[in-house]
């Protein structure tokens, strides 16, 4: 212990030292922005100063070679400063318009994808999946790579009615979050319990408390203290699995993918919204997950053709109505689309508003 070093509890570093000088100079003094072309933003300050931002998508899981390549490009074209967006895109800032095209060429030439601005399909925000998570039902980076291969033109070209945020989550805890389109794991069978291990591995009371539907109770199984699940109550959410790994929820066959639409965290034009279930039972099919991607593409196509300028996915559906949405994307409507959770009543139609 004597040679242990005390940590310096410095917390969140001051970004001022890492910020592009033009951004420091005009901090809080920006007047407006423009969108000269997809992947490029122009911000103009009250002082008249201008800064161009070039945004690029990457593989997100960066190896040090790729990270250094991104730094090389930043040194050569962007004065040695970068900014990362919420969705793990990298942004380079330049103060000379003549540098914009060479910077784009350098990024594209190195295999990065310039785009992701304004009304494009943004980079998919995602979780860790089989690469690093302890409870994943599927992979994350692989799903995203496969989907972005197919959606690359929508990322590169800003020609959607409004921006489209896509997210993925590899379990039902949904770290990936809310999106215009969200692709999440949905387990369909209760956990398989290894009763020999539960007593030694799990803090049983906290596992019981974790269940959102009170379906777990203590039990003696094979003479050992364990847990049992009332399978009629169980909603297969997998909440018991992280604190109790012997309650295996992941299943190669029965852990499926589901697709949700209409999550929107902006307040523009309407209050933020949560996503709604539209498709489930989609096979978890590595390495390319073609079935999930096909549905996402159908939804995007219908949205692109049917939505008005500035309408996000949720606003488009709100206008045309859910019956027509299901018709346009050729998805089945089932009893599973009817909410059963607390507050469900608020989602029922208590009016004479009917769509034909």
């Amino acid at each position, binding site marked *: 212990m004597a040679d242990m070093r005390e940590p310096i509890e410095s917390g969140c570093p001051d*970004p001022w030292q890492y910020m592009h000088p033009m951004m420091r100079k005009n901090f809080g003094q920006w007047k407006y922005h423009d969108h000269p072309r997809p992947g490029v933003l122009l911000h103009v300050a009250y002082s008249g100063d201008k*800064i161009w931002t070039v945004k690029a998508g990457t593989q997100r899981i960066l*190896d040090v*070679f790729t*990270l250094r390549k991104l730094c090389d490009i930043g040194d050569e074209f962007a004065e040695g400063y970068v900014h990362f967006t*919420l969705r793990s895109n990298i942004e380079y800032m330049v103060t000379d318009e003549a540098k914009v095209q060479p910077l784009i060429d350098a990024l594209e030439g190195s295999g990065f994808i310039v785009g992701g601005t304004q009304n494009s399909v943004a980079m998919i925000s995602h979780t860790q999946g089989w690469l690093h998570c*302890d409870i994943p039902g599927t992979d994350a980076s692989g799903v995203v790579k496969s989907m972005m291969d197919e959606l690359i033109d929508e990322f590169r070209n800003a020609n959607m009615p409004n921006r489209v945020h896509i997210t993925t989550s590899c379990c039902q805890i949904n770290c990936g979050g809310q999106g215009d389109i969200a692709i999440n794991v949905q387990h369909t069978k209760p956990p398989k319990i290894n009763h020999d291990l539960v007593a030694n591995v799990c803090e049983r009371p906290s596992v019981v408390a974790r269940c959102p539907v009170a379906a777990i109770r203590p039990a003696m199984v094979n003479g050992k203290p364990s847990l049992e699940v009332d399978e009629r109550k169980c909603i297969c959410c997998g909440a018991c699995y992280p604190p109790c790994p012997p309650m295996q929820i992941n299943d190669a066959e029965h852990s499926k993918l589901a697709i949700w639409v209409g999550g929107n965290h902006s307040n523009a034009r309407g209050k933020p919204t949560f996503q709604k279930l539209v498709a489930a039972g989609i096979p978890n099919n590595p390495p390319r997950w073609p079935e999930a991607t096909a549905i996402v593409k159908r939804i995007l196509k219908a949205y692109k053709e049917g939505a008005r300028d500035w309408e996000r996915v949720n606003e488009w559906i709100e206008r045309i109505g859910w019956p027509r949405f299901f018709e346009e994307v050729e998805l089945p409507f089932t009893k599973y689309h009817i909410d059963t959770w607390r507050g469900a009543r608020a989602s029922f139609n208590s009016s004479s508003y009917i769509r034909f």
Partner: protein
Amino acid sequence: MAIEKHSTPMLDQLETGPWPSFISGIKRLRDEHPEPRINAMTNDLLGQLEHSYETRKGYWKGGTVSVFGYGGGIIPRFSEVGKAFPKSKEFHTLRVQPPAGNHYSTGMLRQLADSWEKWGSGLVTFHGQTGNIMFIGTDTQNTQHFFDEINEYGWDLGGAGPCVRTAMSCVGAARCEMSCTNELKAHRALVNNFVDDVHRPALPYKFKFKVSGCANDCQNAIERSDFAVLGTWRDDMKVDQAEVKNYIADKGRQYYIDNVITRCPTQALSLTDDNALVVNNRDCVRCMHCLNVMPKALHPGDDKGVTILIGGKRTLKIGDLMGTVVVPFKKLETEEDYGSMVELAETIIDFWAENGLEHERCGEMIERIGLANFLDGIGIEPDPNMLSHPRQSSYVRLDGWDEAAEAWFERQAEAGK
């Protein structure tokens, strides 16, 4: 010494197609990195990942790994198939707090890359869903070495477990005309007041701060943080009528009627016959839409501040919750303003630490005890801005009505209303 490379036919398929491939990157570390430890570690990582793809199962288990003096900030990973893939059998992630707003110099990124390849796998993500830099893949011993090295030049671990987590803020005032507050300052004032609660998990569950400079909420604060700070203003928005006319000359009157006037959620806008934009600011809710469509013509007002919403979270356990308005408007200019915001965060965390159940997020506690009790507990008076509409259920005791009504009129008089 040449390593025996695992065959990865499924992962190889993720090297085709135009989007950059993370598999190609990991293979480069395996094949080209001068450090044999990294070659072997990434080879076994690919082997285990291929095994996951074949069997459609994950094989990492959690555990307990920390650095000296801290109880969190590391995501420990031990392989369940470590016998087959021994070189990556320990593959922990260090969560490191980014600078507020995610700004970096390339020099600093290179320094971090140098340290990471010395002690880790060479894989890193900017950033994870909580907002941390994720240094993915090192063993228990090197976790400490890597932390010691980067901690010396200004980097600290973020949160993992039931603690205050790494915060997030948008690019904001650094490069956005919509910014209504100093996001970076708010971010650091909040999270750096709680370093002890970040590093030593002792709360009911996680607690997140996120700061967005305006109602566009690019940081997803309302839906994803326990304490969401959103920039706003309370005087009149600024209108440059000449620029309004320029926009209309460019795209036509019809476009702006259809995309601005009729899209206002509170019908606060109209267009005169000579193309002047009329704004009824008493009806405006600062949703940002018209500013988004006409950024040259419309700007936030001068009397800026923040709205604070409490209790947003993801699904586990009672379902997704949005944050609820607890502070409709607060000035955030003087050091006292920042101090009182931090005090509010302390009050809320203290109340929740005292009253929250194990593994219960702040928003879930509010759901359980009721918003009125929560407000009472943190000493904030009720305000109609906290609700979409007043109660619908008549099942309530109203014995204290007269006193509450009296108090309301007193508060209104104090506020000069």
